[in-house]
């Protein structure tokens, strides 16, 4: 073989001999010439792909509905903090620090809608009062805690302000002395509202109160805290790094966040960050694993298999019917390989068509069912694209055997068939 190549160097190098482009054109024409049969050929694949899309789509939609109803908060909340380890003295020590820009990094991950850091501020012996003059005769009250957060806290923890507003990036960046009071802290400090532009004093430094937080889904401790910007805590109290991050994420994006967040926060040592996302054995997975879904997926798989066998059968039939054409192509100088490639591509085209039609049909069914039940349909685009690709794969596998049969035909015998 080697020797032959060397003896005839130009034989294998044929300029513009039946390129992939030509094979595609010929295959498309071959498929297009038999549109009536095409519909029958793709039917099995269409049904198989549609069944899988409908099953997974309804499972996702249904799971989302469960989440919406029973655990709307849990399904959308995630948090991250440094992992800890007990040291020799039994003290738990953080293995890492969260970076200052942790929220920005988190927002780059698909599915993260809002993120904010939350830290408890150590103010030492400092006192917190609502008036500047320290009055030793006043009754001592429980001192509220001081917390520091970044600007987007409200969205990240599902908080709600009774009055005023939350501080923004500007306050945070400049280290402005502003504060938002949890509703319990406000009551303890005797501050009724922000209209009078009150201040709280931490160790005689005034912090202007700009808002009152009266509810939050997460971190209810905030309600009894004086909340100041992260940057302010760094400047005034030497806060080194954020202690934790709270996030609002999209339903179903928990696994993605789980996969990516730690690496994003600590690229070299992702295991030093502890990420908590909606527990993966969630309604989503349970629904997918439920028996009904398994049965449907199995049916879809069987339909796909039948679809593949259908394509293989029809392609084989068409190879036999078209032996005259194959003989002609061989007589015109087609190599066995050229013939095989053409038939494989024809089969892939048929499979892809089946996959596309099946995916479209499946999406339509999921949308229709959701509409009737008044659910929000959830369809992973990747799943739909994957379904179409699965059709192409079915076509490819189904085409291999018929294509080798076509390639093996002897030109003389094939030509005798006529076309």
């Amino acid at each position, binding site marked *: 073989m080697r020797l032959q190549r060397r003896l005839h160097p130009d034989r294998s190098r*044929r300029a513009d*001999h039946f390129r992939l482009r030509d094979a595609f054109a010929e295959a498309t024409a071959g498929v297009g010439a038999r549109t009536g049969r095409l519909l029958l050929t793709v039917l099995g694949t269409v049904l198989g792909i549609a069944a899988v899309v409908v099953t997974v789509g309804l499972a996702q939609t249904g799971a989302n509905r469960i989440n919406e109803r029973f655990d709307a908060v849990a399904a959308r909340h995630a948090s991250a903090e440094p992992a800890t380890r007990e040291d020799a003295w039994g003290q738990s020590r953080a293995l890492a620090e969260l970076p200052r820009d942790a929220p920005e990094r988190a927002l780059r991950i698909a599915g993260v809608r809002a993120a904010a850091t939350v830290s408890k501020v150590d103010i030492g012996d400092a006192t917190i009062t609502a008036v500047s003059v320290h009055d030793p005769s006043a009754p001592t009250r429980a001192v509220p805690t001081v917390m520091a957060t970044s600007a987007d806290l409200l969205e990240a923890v599902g908080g709600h302000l009774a009055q005023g507003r939350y501080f923004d990036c500007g306050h945070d960046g400049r280290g402005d002395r502003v504060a938002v009071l949890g509703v319990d802290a406000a009551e303890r400090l005797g501050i009724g509202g922000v209209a009078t532009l009150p201040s709280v004093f931490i160790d005689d430094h005034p912090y202007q109160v700009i808002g009152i937080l009266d509810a939050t889904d997460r971190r209810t401790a905030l309600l009894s805290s004086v909340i100041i910007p992260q940057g302010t805590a760094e400047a005034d109290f030497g806060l080194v790094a954020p202690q934790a991050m709270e996030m609002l994420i999209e339903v179903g994006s928990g696994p993605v966040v789980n996969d990516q967040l730690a690496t994003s926060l600590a690229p070299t040592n992702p295991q030093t960050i502890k990420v908590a996302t909606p527990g993966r054995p969630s309604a989503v997975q349970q629904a997918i694993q439920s028996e009904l879904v398994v049965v449907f997926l199995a049916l879809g798989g069987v339909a796909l298999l039948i679809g593949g066998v259908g394509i293989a059968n029809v392609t084989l039939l068409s190879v036999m019917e078209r032996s005259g054409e194959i003989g002609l192509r061989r007589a*015109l100088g087609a190599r066995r390989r050229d013939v095989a490639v053409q038939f494989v591509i024809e089969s892939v085209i048929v499979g892809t068509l089946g996959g596309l039609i099946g995916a479209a049909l499946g999406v339509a069914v999921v949308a229709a069912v959701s509409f009737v039940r008044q659910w929000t349909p959830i369809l992973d685009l990747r799943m739909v694209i994957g379904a179409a690709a699965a059709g192409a794969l079915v076509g490819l596998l189904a085409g291999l055997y018929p294509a080798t049969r076509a390639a093996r035909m002897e030109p003389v015998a094939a030509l005798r068939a006529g076309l």
Partner: protein
Amino acid sequence: MKLFGLPDNSDNQGDQDPRWTSDQPVLSLRGVTREFPGTPPVHALGATNLDVRAGEYLAVAGPSGSGKSTLLNQLGLLDRPTAGEYWLRGVPTATAPEQVRTTLRAQRIGFVFQAFHLMPHRSVLDNVLLATLYSGTPRGERRDRALRALDRVGLSHRVEFMPPNLSGGERQRVAIARAVVTIPDVLLADEPTGNLDSTSSSGVMDLFDELHHDGLTLVVITHDPTVAARAGRRVHITDGYLREVA
């Protein structure tokens, strides 16, 4: 040789023996034999010696089952001999790799069949273009060549037609255009007029005469004596044995 104003492709291809020159036979068979295994085996072609020179017009006649198609399949590299050697433009082919035979077939040989062998769902132009897909014709030249070949056979007005809408004579002329679009050295025709009435037949034969005049080498199988009479050289085949007819 110049077919419809296009030079042949002998200069730019590397598939010929450098020792071959155009005054030597284009086709040369020595002891070429074809047996079909079976009980008893069929001796379709006995040890055959045949030389065909460039520009020759050879008619092969003989009764049914005498081995005419078997011979043509050998000449066209569609089938391998059981014994013997066959040189095409000086290249030995009997035991050459499939790749070599396929390339020679694509570039050196044009076929015309009795049953036309046109693809029914493809236009006349597409049918002619089909041959250029496998011959290494540069993509940019394919269409122009196909149109010229169709013009050469007088079918410029049928370019977008579908073969089922053509007459038998027109179909065979499309097939001839497809056979010559690659500028082959040899045109092999197996009963090209077998399915045609006498008018269409003589149209096809006139076309062969013209191509012969342009320098094309032709080997035409026929039982029709008037067709055979057009050829410059005639051989007769009986029971697989070839005999020159004076």
